[in-house]
């Protein structure tokens, strides 16, 4: 099942509901064959944007192009794109085969050809042999696969997915993330995927578009977004982080009255936030060069399976009254080394892992 993927150009898409801006001047380019994720909290506008792509929501203004063709005025049934709905939206009065064959039947494909393509699509999603099952007889994971088969059976050039894994349990969801990504690679379709789960976005995407309050906040590869978030919202939303208030004056960064080394210097003076990823912190006894150190008291120590989460109340005199979170993978520190509640400890953070956001 190979077809030519199409690129998508979204330009200045704005959608209001009364006074409320669901989308505000969103412009982004999805490369052909790319797996792009629209990531944002609920109510951020990510689903609205997907609905604009599918044609179910008409924007106030702006342009959507599939390849070179302007589609913003095209009704949904003429757009020829596959879509997997959040609740799957399988037709309950049809069996698996009829569901998957539906788009082919609409396209006037011959009976033999329908059978052939449906079988192939079911095989692709590993459901071969279940064609005669009723939708009600399927498990959640199987329904999800049927919805996927139905969306790819007519070999669309673009595939949209609206939180397709949100109804599955965690283990199945993580398996499906890998599987969907592999499927994307083998099908050569441009995929736009909507999720509010940052880990899912990091796992699956070529690039992530972070959306909040109807605006595109950052569009970049997963590693770039994790390592260098544009602003406090993204730093907080993607991955775990402690945001510490710092002051910048004359290019020097101060946490309380401690000077902090940062990777990228800031030209502007004023209040900033230091982003500290809990897993980047390490226990130290001596001061190291090219490294920030923080001292404080452990106020909480939580066992979380693969790691131990420490809450460190920073020394109010030198760092200001703030909480720092630190994650120690279990097994790396011996039990004696693991600080317990009430201990005063010093932790280090490499300069290259220290960065500021506004």
């Amino acid at each position, binding site marked *: 099942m190979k077809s030519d993927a199409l690129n998508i150009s979204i330009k200045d898409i704005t959608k209001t509901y009364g006074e409320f801006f669901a989308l505000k001047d969103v412009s982004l380019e999805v490369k052909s064959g790319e797996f792009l994720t629209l990531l944002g909290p609920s109510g951020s506008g990510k689903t609205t944007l997907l609905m604009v792509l*599918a*044609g*179910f929501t008409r924007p106030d203004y702006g342009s959507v192009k599939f390849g070179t063709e302007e589609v913003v005025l095209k*009704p*949904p*049934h*003429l*757009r*020829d*794109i*596959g*879509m997997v*709905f*959040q*609740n799957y*939206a*399988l*037709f*309950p*009065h049809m069996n698996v085969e009829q569901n998957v064959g*539906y*788009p082919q039947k*609409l*396209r006037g494909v011959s009976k033999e050809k329908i059978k052939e393509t449906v079988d192939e699509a079911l095989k692709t999603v590993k459901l071969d042999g279940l064609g005669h099952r009723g939708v*009600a007889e399927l498990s959640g994971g199987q329904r999800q696969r049927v919805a996927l088969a*139905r*969306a790819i059976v*007519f070999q669309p050039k673009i595939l949209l997915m609206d939180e397709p894994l949100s109804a599955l349990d965690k283990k199945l969801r993580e398996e499906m993330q890998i599987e969907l990504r592999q499927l994307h690679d083998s099908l050569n379709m441009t995929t736009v995927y909507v999720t509010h789960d940052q880990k899912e976005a990091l796992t699956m995407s070529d690039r992530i578009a972070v959306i909040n309050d109807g605006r595109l906040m950052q569009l970049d590869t997963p590693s770039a977004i994790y390592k260098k978030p544009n602003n406090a919202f993204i730093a907080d939303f993607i991955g775990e982080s402690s945001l510490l208030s710092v002051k910048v004056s004359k290019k020097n960064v101060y946490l309380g009255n401690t000077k902090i080394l940062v990777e990228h210097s800031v030209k502007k003076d004023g209040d900033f936030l230091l982003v500290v990823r809990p897993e980047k912190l390490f226990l130290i006894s001596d001061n190291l060069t090219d490294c920030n150190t923080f001292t404080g008291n452990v106020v909480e120590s939580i066992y979380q399976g693969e790691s131990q989460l420490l809450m460190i109340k920073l020394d109010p005199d030198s760092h200001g009254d703030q909480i720092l979170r630190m994650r120690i993978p279990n097994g790396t520190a011996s039990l004696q080394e693991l600080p317990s509640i009430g201990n005063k400890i010093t932790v280090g953070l490499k300069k290259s892992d220290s960065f500021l956001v506004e």
Partner: protein
Amino acid sequence: MTSTQRINQEGINKTELDQLDRKERYTLFGLTVPYLALVFGLIIIPIGWLFYMSFIGRDETLSLENYQRIWNSKAYLRIFKTTFQISLLTTLFCVLFGYPLTYFMSQLSNRWANICMIGVLIPFWTSLLVRTYAWLVLLQKKGLINTLAVDWGLWAEPIKFVHNTSGTLIGMVHIMLPFLILPLYANMRTIDKDCLKAAANLGATPTRAFWTVFFPLSLPGLFAGLLIVFVLCLGFYVTPALLGGGKVIMVAMKISDNIELYYSWGAASALGVVLLGVTMIILFIASKLVSIDQLGNRS
């Protein structure tokens, strides 16, 4: 030890737990007692009495003459034919008017759908007799509709709307519509709107999406509604009696005539039994065509 083995074995507290179980079941059953008593006193006994009376002839002995009369008389055959015709036509018109309206309501926002629903329910809550007489006032020769239409020159002579089949149909369709709309609406509201979106996304025009997805999914509601309407029509009395003006005679009216004019309880009972029997047969066939659980919501 497998769980079945376990169940068969006497375990600790088994007797006490069983006792509690039984007690709970009896308590639950107790809740139905008032209703069962009511059904028994007001439905089972009278119908049994009716059944018995239908086999009593004019000379107060057991005989089949009441049924023979129904079977042999052309008049009775005609009455049954009229009853079914009127019921079928009423059901048909109810579907023709009710389905599009209900579809429209199901697509509205909750707020507007509720306003429309009030429009459906207010007549439904108004007395049947009031509504029937209202139609009489509107439709008769010197009624509002004819007077206005003649004044405005829509038609030259007053049209005879009442005391015939058309009057009966107008009144019955109006009175029966809510019985179709209510179950149909309940069903349509449960149809996942995303299914229609999915159909459109997969390439279906709005018309095609309606006929291939929405309509089949609304069938259980439609079927429930039209069955209620049809069965209610079979035994309808007040409206056909008033708007038909004695020219449209349905079974219920004949039953009443048999008692009021001829004091023939036997004949009336036999008619009642036949009507009941026919209704049961229709319900049975219908339940075979569409299984009962399909009338509920399939999620």
